[in-house]
């Protein structure tokens, strides 16, 4: 309960900070929408030259892109802003302040900041998803929406855990200020169906670095191509990634030596 209250407190602070600079928030909201527009134009241009990608026609690639955008924004709101700060905190010795607090270090490192500017696009794309599915002739049942949501959340936990473990590298290599660029590239790969990869590469991106969880599996479940057993698989993978990231983080933390005076 204490953690929940702290979580909402941090969220409220981020919201208040964002609303303090309303013009900035508005500009970023429009920029996010502009990026989305460009992504859709990009797919349109691509399909001006090709008829399908790995057997996926344009409409299904658009579905992937919509789910990808929702996933991207979910991470941009709840996960990436805090992880982005870890490098800075360690480099400037401010990480000590987190270590001293009587709260789980992982929790505190993960809820420092929220990306409020991505909220509007997250909501808008979620609505677009419902209408787009209807246009495709797909009316998911409540159970299917539940499966979709669980797979989606599994993907979010997997990537949160992976990025959190990567943030641990900052304890060894002090100046990794651009880890967020790597996050972006990894997430970007989720725009395309995992079928673009063959053989070992496909196994790698399905099981070891499962970018298939970003949009591919959630899209597959909405298209009725995979069953609920993949939700269980998602939950197992999320648990494995969460525990592994904790072990890695604890190991990395031992190398932390404060930089403050």
């Amino acid at each position, binding site marked *: 309960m204490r953690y929940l209250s702290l979580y909402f407190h941090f969220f409220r602070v981020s919201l208040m900070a964002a609303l303090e600079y309303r013009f900035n928030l508005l500009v970023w909201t429009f920029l996010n929408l502009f990026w989305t527009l*460009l992504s859709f134009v990009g797919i349109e241009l691509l399909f001006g030259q090709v008829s399908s990608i790995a*057997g996926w026609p344009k409409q299904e690639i658009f579905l992937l892109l919509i789910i990808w955008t929702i996933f991207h924004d979910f991470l941009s709101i709840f996960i990436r802003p805090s992880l982005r700060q870890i490098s800075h905190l360690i480099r400037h010795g401010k990480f000590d302040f987190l270590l001293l607090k009587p709260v789980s270090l992982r929790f505190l490192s993960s809820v420092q900041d929220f990306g409020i500017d991505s909220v509007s696009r997250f909501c808008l794309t979620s609505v677009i998803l419902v209408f787009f599915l209807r246009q495709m002739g797909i009316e998911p049942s409540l159970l299917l929406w539940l499966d979709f949501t669980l797979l989606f959340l599994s993907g979010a936990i997997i990537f949160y855990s992976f990025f959190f473990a990567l943030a641990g590298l900052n304890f060894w290599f002090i100046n990794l200020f651009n880890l967020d660029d790597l996050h972006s590239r990894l997430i970007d790969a989720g725009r395309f169906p995992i079928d673009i990869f063959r053989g070992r590469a496909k196994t790698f991106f399905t099981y070891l670095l499962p970018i298939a969880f970003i949009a591919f599996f959630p899209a597959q479940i909405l298209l009725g191509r995979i069953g609920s057993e993949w939700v269980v698989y998602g939950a197992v993978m999320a648990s494995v990634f969460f525990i592994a990231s904790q072990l890695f983080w604890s190991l990395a933390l031992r190398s932390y030596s404060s930089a403050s005076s």
Partner: protein
Amino acid sequence: MKKYLAFFKNEFANTAIYRGPLFIWIISGAFYAIVMTAVWKTSQAGGMIGGYTRSELITYYLAALLLDRFINWLPHYSTNEEIRTGQIAVSSLIKPISFYWRKIFQEIGWHTFSVAFGLPFVLILALFFRADLALNFSPALFFWIAAAAILGSLVVFGLSLCLGLLSFWFTDIWAIDSLFWALRMFLAGQALPISFIPGFFQGVIKLLPFRYIFSFPLEIYFHKLSSLEMILGFLTAVFWLVFFALLYKFLWNRGRKAYASFGN
């Protein structure tokens, strides 16, 4: 000249010490190239795709990986940092050093190490995809590509520096930075070759500076340009180089007057 060489050496050493970020950029770029290679290999299309063969498209994204190391002269991040924190008052405003030339030599220092560090990774990736690549080299081609890449570096340098100088008026330039990257992704041919864009817009794109900071050297490499188009391309790039140099002068003179430094 000696003082600017010191900036070159200092930046080279600084980049060499903190190799971590460079490694992350190379891995990120390589990952993108691998994904795009997989996309082109599995795309269904009859014959050419946007005027390129499949091999050329795969080579395009792999070459872009190296070009990224070479051509990404982006001083607006450090310029913003200097202006925002007040460092610029000490580092440039009260010293007999040209801010423009200091930034150029710092960029050369960082990119000299960056290219040397990135080259082995590109070669390994090229070796891995060697069966899919469209390789063609001649000394003349190498000369023109190098000339276009150097010119492109200077154009992006000018554009980026002018963006950075906007920090004199707006402390937070990250929205402009995001817009810069969005335009760059599409108008420079980074997301897709610009031949994918419909004809009329291609004409407009050729007049804008973005094409010259990424796509132009690659178009030369793949023999997509006639001699006349190459000459026009070089002339347009030179125009933008001069334009941004003049814009820099204007912004620098105005900005210094508007600037109120803080810090110690």
